[in-house]
């Protein structure tokens, strides 16, 4: 097994009485693009804030590059670049001046500013005031400031948030290139499944503060689910029956229901239950497995 860049053990975190993180264990291998997936409010940003020493976990330990974060904050964070949620930008300064503020804090040569501006393709707008930046430009400026110190690890919290489709593609290409061409380990959070699917080598899925899955992206595909689409007569009644069997309905229309299932036996079990309850089943169709199905199955968020 390759070296672990981030390793957390049994992280607990509370907001007053609300348990935001429950024994979170993460193992991020060197050189990976690690997708950290979860619905809104699952604890992604909280975890990231702990990784950056912005929050202090009530229990558990964070190791970065094999060393304890609380003991070596300054040395370890000098190898980390971060982009956290909404961009942190001084609106009254230009893009270049924003980078200068960060440059002064980390003490790298001035020439780095132009280098990172080129990487994020912000050269032409570098001397515009940041208050005139579009959201996409703000995100790229945030990424530029994360890259200033030439970190070995990039922690990006929802980097494609609020970007338009071309911005998303651009950001994705940038992230992949930083990983492949510059050898950076990338820890990436998102609630958008297809995003992660297109980039990540490893994933963790978090829901309500608990890690539901951690491992290779491929591993997730092989041992889990498919979608089952059922065309039937009484959708409302069918949903109740299916829920009572402890399945999650992901989509439904006036004629059909779609839900994630784990194995073939589920199809038979659901069909039998429906027929027993006098519902006419017209068609049973199992579709290609998607990450979405897996995700819903693990988090059971929708429709509950």
């Amino acid at each position, binding site marked *: 097994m390759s070296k672990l860049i981030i390793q957390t053990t049994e992280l607990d975190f509370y907001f007053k009485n609300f348990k935001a993180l429950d024994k979170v264990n993460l193992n991020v291998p060197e050189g990976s693009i690690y997708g950290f997936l979860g619905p809104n409010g699952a604890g992604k940003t909280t975890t990231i*804030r702990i990784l*950056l*020493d*912005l*929050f*202090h976990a009530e229990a558990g330990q964070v190791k970065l590059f094999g060393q304890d974060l609380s003991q070596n*904050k*300054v*040395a*370890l*964070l*000098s190898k*980390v670049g*971060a982009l*956290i949620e*909404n*961009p*942190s*930008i*001084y*609106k*009254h*300064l230009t893009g270049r*001046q924003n980078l*200068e*503020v*960060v440059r*002064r*804090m*980390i*003490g790298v040569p001035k020439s780095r500013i132009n280098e990172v501006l080129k990487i994020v393709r912000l050269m032409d707008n570098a001397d515009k005031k940041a208050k005139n930046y579009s959201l996409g430009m703000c995100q790229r400026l945030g990424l530029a*400031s994360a890259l200033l*110190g030439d970190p070995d690890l990039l922690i990006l919290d929802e980097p494609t948030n609020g970007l338009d489709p071309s911005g998303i593609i651009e950001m994705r290409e940038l992230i992949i290139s930083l990983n492949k061409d510059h050898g950076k380990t990338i820890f990436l959070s998102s609630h958008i499944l297809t995003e992660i699917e297109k980039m990540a080598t490893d994933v963790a899925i978090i829901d309500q503060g608990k890690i539901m899955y951690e491992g290779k992206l491929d591993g997730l595909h092989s041992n889990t689910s498919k979608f089952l689409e059922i065309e039937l007569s009484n959708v409302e009644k069918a949903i109740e029956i299916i829920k009572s069997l402890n399945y999650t309905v992901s989509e439904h229309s006036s004629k059909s229901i779609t839900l994630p299932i784990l194995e073939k036996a589920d199809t038979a079990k659901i069909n039998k239950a429906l027929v027993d309850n006098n519902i006419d089943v017209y068609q049973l169709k199992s579709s290609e497995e998607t990450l979405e199905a897996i995700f819903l199955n693990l988090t059971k968020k929708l429709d509950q």
Partner: protein
Amino acid sequence: MNIAIQLKRSLSAEVYKYKKTLTLWLLILAPAFVPVINFIILWQKGPQVIKPDMDAWATLINFSVDPANFLFPFFVMMVALLVNNIEYSSNTWKLIYAQPLSRFALYFAKMKVFISMIFISLMLFGTFTILVGLSMRYVQPGLGFEEAFSFGFEYSLMIKIFLATLGMASIQFFISQQSKNLILPLGIGIAGLISFMIVVQGWEYAPYHPYGYSILATGGIRQEGFQIWADLASVYKSLIVAVVMFTLAGVIQLKKRII
């Protein structure tokens, strides 16, 4: 990385971010406000204001210190707000606290910039006041500004006001650091100032009110034989409050959850 480098880096970034902000103009224009008014009064109505038997320099200093005593606390409140709100309004607490610098260095840099801003503006205020007096030698000769004047007295007075202000400044800094809210620190500051003005009318414990230290420190200035460094009770009280509040703010900042 040793703490001296961290402090230097934090400070350098902290100073840089005020480029082209209102804060910089405030530091220059606010201390010029009262001297400019004094200049106009003395220039236009000098002979009516300063009678031949009056000490011109002493009168000018009274004219400066009285309104400044009232206005300066508001200036301190604004600076305390601005240095902290620059982070709140840009969402940058998390940016600076995620850098490879200790929380102590980051906190200390901000505190130092805040204190320096107050100090610089007071020194500017003293300088502008002296310039008003000197300019009268040419603009309104004969008022008495030709007489020698100890600049050291004016600057010592400013330093005393500075020290006596640190107490309330530390309270304002603490509140502004803890709260994103703009109104709360101003509200507490104004309430502090007004409550001092009420209790000072006759409550025996009024001298302990932190918003009154700077006013009390210059209280005897009209009396004959006023010695700047004779009565330092208000200065000591102010310094004690400042040490306690800045330390408390620092300790909280070390443990705080940075949103």
